[in-house]
């Protein structure tokens, strides 16, 4: 009896507040942990599992395990996949390069204080805030070869009307142009922020030493701005690789698959062909690609970080 009583004293009653304060670490992390598990780890795991199966969503036939078949088919017997990988990189490289250059030029142009600066910054934001699908529709009309705006302007400039999205040679680059139109402002804004925090002293010293504006740009602004440029390029590259909405609304990957990227191809596999396994394997490869690109940029950034 006595022992039992003693045990009761030794073990105090369960108190929620005490338990909480003792396990604060877990309790505070739990919500985000659950979120990450449910919204990130599970889908990724499920995609991985699905990529090793073949399934069209049937309620009757369960997914069939096929091992690595989906992957081997993609690499050995599917030219559309290989082409779409090349296209995805081509599209992203062209779009992001031009966006960085234009963004830098715009940022330099808007550097310093002048009247109406905020207005211009707001106007710059407009293409970014528009819904991509609505943008796609608007550009579809602009690119329309017969009744579209662009072709009705070209003859005035002495140029021949073009088929634009109706041509396998031009379609992808028209899409890149839309991407550039939409995302250059974001580049400009990031770079403007980068420019604003550059230290004054080196520039003053350079001016005293008689460096001309070009020299100041190439020997001071550009190197000092490099970390900003790299981060901006990294963010934009990942986004550009993932571009889906404008391609889907404007060309659906056509004509002749000439604007089909990895993302739209996996969409086609999943929702047009009902090959959920194959679509998942494409997405996993895509995931690996994006991961690789990110790591590459992080490495570059480290290098620059050390030098700067």
């Amino acid at each position: 009896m006595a022992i039992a009583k003693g045990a009761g004293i030794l073990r105090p009653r369960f108190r929620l507040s005490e338990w909480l304060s003792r396990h604060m670490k877990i309790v505070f992390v739990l919500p985000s942990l659950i979120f990450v598990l449910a919204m990130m780890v599970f889908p990724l795991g499920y995609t991985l599992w699905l990529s090793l199966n073949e399934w069209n969503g049937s309620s009757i036939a369960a997914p069939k395990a096929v091992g690595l078949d989906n992957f081997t088919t993609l690499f050995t017997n599917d030219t559309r996949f290989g082409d779409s990988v090349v296209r995805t990189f081509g599209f992203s490289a062209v779009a992001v390069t031009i966006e960085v250059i234009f963004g830098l030029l715009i940022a330099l142009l808007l550097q310093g204080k002048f009247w109406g600066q905020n207005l211009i910054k707001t106007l710059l934001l407009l293409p970014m805030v528009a819904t991509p699908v609505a943008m796609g529709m608007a550009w579809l009309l602009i690119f329309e070869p017969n009744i579209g705006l662009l072709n009705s302007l070209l003859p005035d400039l002495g140029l021949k009307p073009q088929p634009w999205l109706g041509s396998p040679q031009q379609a992808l680059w028209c899409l890149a142009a839309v991407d550039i139109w939409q995302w250059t402002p974001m580049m400009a804004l990031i770079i403007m922020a980068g420019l604003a925090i550059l230290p004054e002293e080196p520039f003053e010293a350079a001016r005293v030493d008689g460096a001309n504006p070009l020299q100041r740009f190439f020997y001071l602004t550009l190197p000092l701005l490099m970390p900003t440029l790299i981060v901006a390029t990294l963010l934009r590259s990942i986004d550009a690789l993932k571009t889906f909405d404008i391609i889907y609304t404007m060309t659906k990957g056509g004509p002749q698959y000439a604007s089909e990227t990895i993302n739209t191809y996996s969409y086609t596999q999943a929702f047009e062909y009902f090959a959920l396994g194959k679509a998942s394997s494409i997405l996993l490869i895509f995931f690996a690609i994006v991961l690789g690109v990110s790591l590459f940029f992080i490495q570059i950034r480290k290098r620059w970080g050390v030098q700067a």
Partner: protein
Amino acid sequence: MRRNFENSFRRLGLIVVLVLLAALAVACGDTQVASNTAPAASTLPTVASSTGNTTLASGGNATTSSSSGTGVTTVAGASGTGAATSADLTAGVSKNFAGKEIRLITANHPWATGMAKLIPQFEQASGMKVKAESYFEDQLSQKLQIGLTSGSSGADVFMYRPLQEGRLFVKNGWLNDLSGQAQKATDWNWADFQDSARNTVTVDNKAYGVPLVTEREIVYYRKDLFQQAGLQPPASMDDLLAAAKKLTDPSKQQFGIVMRGQRSPAVTQFSSFLYSYGGNWEKDGKSAISSPEALSAYKTYGDLLRNYGPQGTLNMSWPQAVAIFQQGKAAMWIDADSLYTNVLDPSKSTIVDKVGYAQFPAGPGGSKPYNVTSWGIGMNQASANKDADWEFIRWATSAPVVMALQQGGLPGARSSVWNSPDGLKGFPVEYARVAQSSAKVGVGADRPAVINVGQARDIVGAPLEVSIQGGDVSAAVTEADKKFSSFLVSDK
């Protein structure tokens, strides 16, 4: 200390990057979710039309003209119905399922618009509640797939495209077999639905849906231009080519013809060319697209668009094609007859009073336009209250309701409605004549009858793209034939 700080900082950076990447993976891995939302935000004809050839213009003119009390006259020739139809659209609706709720999922289609106006009458007569949701064509397909894949009974009754998704849905066990109910409901009269329409919703001798909307491929032509040029509407393929040639004048930005050129959407409109040249997709279960007949059809389709069509047809589905016709830049437009409200809408069309309609021209194999059921209504296999669902389907496809919808300009599938003068009231006279004559000679499919229709369309549509560009059609057809053959083997 500093080193320590740097290390932990680096580790933090790594964690942040990993989390970002995981988020990215979710964004990509979940294309289902991510990409669905994109088109969802819009009301886009292009999005709505990629695969099908069916929707009318968004916000189309299909307002139902009649409502209860209008007095829909009984239809002669509806065997079995006798003279049973009353003035009330809801005759025969029972109160057996009062209090039950049905979830109806529809496409953003004039059928749904018309139905929305009639549903309150049904609710009143039956005491049931109908909760309707509508989506754009492609989203509907995805919505249904996701909902049905997860086996949820969320949707009870839904619109679907029998030719595009029917076989897949049946194979996956998503559609309830309605044959029993259809046979039992004698006053509803299953036999009144056109043969081709019933065939479209029938898989392995079982009816998995009820036809809602039918369509045929016809020639829309500009009466004024044809008259000026002294031409008759084309009766044969040679006429068609000659008329297209004569009416093409690039200096005036006027083209002889416009049709869909996008690979997959063009397939359905190419089908009538294929049949009229005497070809078909398959023969005895094997690919037939490399036959000489099919080759001529592929060549003609491409020649028409390349020589006499506007620029950029390769990226045109019907919304882009009809826009050219609406703007008066093309003398002919060949597409589904169910799209006719687009050319008659004065807010979009500059040629409202100049449009004529003609039956699809005859090729070596005769005039063989498709005559298909573009939309049907089906019941979810997993639905909890199937009898209540059937009560709704039976009412929504009953002769008086179909009559009311067709009078509003929506071509239905009931013979009795088509045979009655009242059923043709909603259509232009010439249009009604052409639709009827096309139905008589029509073929009941406008795409390969397979399970994986999306893939099949991409395969058989590839030679069209080559042909439109003036490439080597025979080589393209040979390659497509090879792919289609192996596809047919795997698509079982």
